[in-house]
């Protein structure tokens, strides 16, 4: 931190000012002039929180994607299909058993198994052939999409939110003071907070697993140099299968999350594939912290965009991607 300030004093100043302004926007009561200019504080706070929680969902999808890419240099364009499949599995389990939590576990296991099959039956046979893998995964995503349309139809499915998660909670953030002097606190949907907390926990667990365990060490070594790692006697194929299963399983969990606070239907697969591509391009291919940062940036851009510049909201995401590609093509947090 201190070194960063010494090396880039101008940037550090900008960052500090930005953080201060943000903190003021979040905690202060907005003066009437500001409210007249950019709308009520409640709307801003909601949009910001929505962006961050949506970022949580994007992170779940993109982290699996970036993990698989980081280790195997394999752009799995069927990742969106895994997301949608996980969502459908979650829906089936939660309507059958009535348990929301169980649907996550089953979705994770089933989609992870699909990932294992994919790795063993497809990717292992064409290791190191990037173009072929890409074409095959595009083909697979089309086949999966058709199979799911056949099985589940074009309907919208929603995973039932458990009753204890429905409705808003009061957050200790002031949005306004009534004329009677009574403070008004922010109301926010509980389910989004829970889901965001869960994705933070998963993110931290993944970071710990990668940086503090033996398996994580092997995976990191594999990211740096696969061949040397294999030469040291590590059963690299087994590691590949494990990582693929984990990445796919995360996409499956994300599907259940997406089905809970949005909805599942044909077409969601490509939407989330696109979202995770944008996220990892912004954050840096193969980097978990990069996926987290990218996810939050894209989530915020979408939500703040939809409130303050609704007409151009869709463009903002891609503008960010273009800017990153132009100024820092390896992504914001990529190591190389």
């Amino acid at each position: 931190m201190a070194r960063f300030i010494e090396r880039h004093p101008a940037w550090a100043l900008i960052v500090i000012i930005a953080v201060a302004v943000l903190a003021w926007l979040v905690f202060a009561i907005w003066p009437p002039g500001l409210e007249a200019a950019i709308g009520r504080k409640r709307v801003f706070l909601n949009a910001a929180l929505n962006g961050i929680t949506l970022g949580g969902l994007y992170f779940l999808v993109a982290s699996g994607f970036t993990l698989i890419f980081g280790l195997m240099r394999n752009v799995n364009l069927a990742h969106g299909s895994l997301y949608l499949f996980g969502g459908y599995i979650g829906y089936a389990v939660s309507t059958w058993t009535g348990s929301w939590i169980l649907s996550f576990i089953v979705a994770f296991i089933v989609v992870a198994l699909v990932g294992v099959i994919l790795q063993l039956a497809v990717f292992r046979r064409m290791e190191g052939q990037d173009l072929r893998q890409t074409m095959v995964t595009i083909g697979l995503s089309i086949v999966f999409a058709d199979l799911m349309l056949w099985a589940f139809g074009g309907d919208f499915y929603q995973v039932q939110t458990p009753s204890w998660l429905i409705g808003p909670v009061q957050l200790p953030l002031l949005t306004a003071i009534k004329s009677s002097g009574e403070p008004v606190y922010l109301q926010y949907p509980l389910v989004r907070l829970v889901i965001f907390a869960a994705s933070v926990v998963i993110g931290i667990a993944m970071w710990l697993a990668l940086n503090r365990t033996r398996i994580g060490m092997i995976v990191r070594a594999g990211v740096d140099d696969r061949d040397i790692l294999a030469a040291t006697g590590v059963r690299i194929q087994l590691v590949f299968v494990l990582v693929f299963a984990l990445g796919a399983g995360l996409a499956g969990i994300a599907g259940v999350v997406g089905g809970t606070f949005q909805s599942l239907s044909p077409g969601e697969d490509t939407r989330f594939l696109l979202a995770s591509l944008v996220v990892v391009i912004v954050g840096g291919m193969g980097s978990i912290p990069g996926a987290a940062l990218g996810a939050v940036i894209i989530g915020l851009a979408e939500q703040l965009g939809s409130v303050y510049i609704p007409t151009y909201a869709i463009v903002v995401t891609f503008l960010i991607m273009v800017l990153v590609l132009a100024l820092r093509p390896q992504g914001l947090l990529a190591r190389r």
Partner: protein
Amino acid sequence: MLKGSLGLIALSSLLLSGTAFAQEKIKVGVTATLEGTYTVLGEDGMRGHQTALNVLGKKVGDKELEFIVASTDATPDSAVRAVRKLIEQDKVQILLSPLSGDEGIAVKNFAKTHPELTFVNAASGAQETTYVDPAPNFFRYNMDGAQWQVGLGKYAYETKGYRKIATVGEDYSFIYTQVFGLVLEFCGAGGQVTNRQWVPLGTKDFASVIAALPDDVDAIYLGLGGADAVNFLNQYQQAGGKAHLMGGSIMIDQTILSSKGNAKNALIGTIAASGQADTWEDPGWQKFVKAYQDAFPPAKRFPSPSLLATNYYGSTMALILALRQVNGDLSNNQAKLKDALAKIEIDAPNGKIKLDANRQAIGTNFVTEVVDDGKGALFSKVVKVIPNVNQTLGYDPAVFAKIGLPSRTVPECKKY
């Protein structure tokens, strides 16, 4: 996903037409939104189309109708692409297309480049399609979005006592047209529309839109459809929304009322207006509902046909009846057929329909309220039936022309 649904439909039409291979055929191209946000709407439209074929048959004199289906995703370019493919590759002579508002405007403009063919609108409802520079070979047997809102504004103001409302709608021509119809009548009666929010078609995360809803209004009007509507309701429930709601024609519709999950329960008691009401007691409507229910197993349809099924039924019916009047004669650039289509009056399930000089439907409109049937299924209950609704909504054409075309900000909230 496109190929899957197309394959199924192609297969079923193949099975149905298997006996007729020796006859001369009339090829009709059909488009529906079988992809994207409006998938469910397109599927039910095709069910309505199939119901019409079951009821009316596919014979025209000694000729047999052959239907070729193409999928779109509610964007204008997808519709033009599908229509072009049907004409150039499949050599269709007549089109039954399209489903959605923006698609309608694009297909109408495209129709002008093929004056020799006949275009029958399937279900699209933007005002501009038939109101501005209409194509002589484009016929629309359903009302437009503004006509479908007739009666709602007055009912909200006079019976429900709403004085101030805000609207949320998808950002494209059909919803502009719906809000146009609503605002004109509600403000004409003395109400105020304080805020109009527009969201892109295909929005998934409405949380911020919901947060930005004003809370000093009596009701919020929702002009959403398909997946967007379901997502909105789900997130509205999670945010603990409690406002009175009003609904557009594809919001309060079986496509939404029979979606899975319980978010739709927020709609109970919501008032809306549309070209149909699920519980209308008219024998013609009841017969249609029965035919629809008999045509498909309960798991493969809605409890009652959606507005899209009704529109596809009506347009298919008009086309087949007109073809029969001219005995399938398509000579001389289909002149006889076009003439018959312009003059025909059909006894559609949702009331009598005839066309005006712009080949736009004049029909019956319904004000409705959402009710629970006691078993958890939601239906739109008829509150008021308004016959003979024309495209200028009863205004003098000169006055109507001054209001301007439906857009994000037109019409202004005042009495015209």
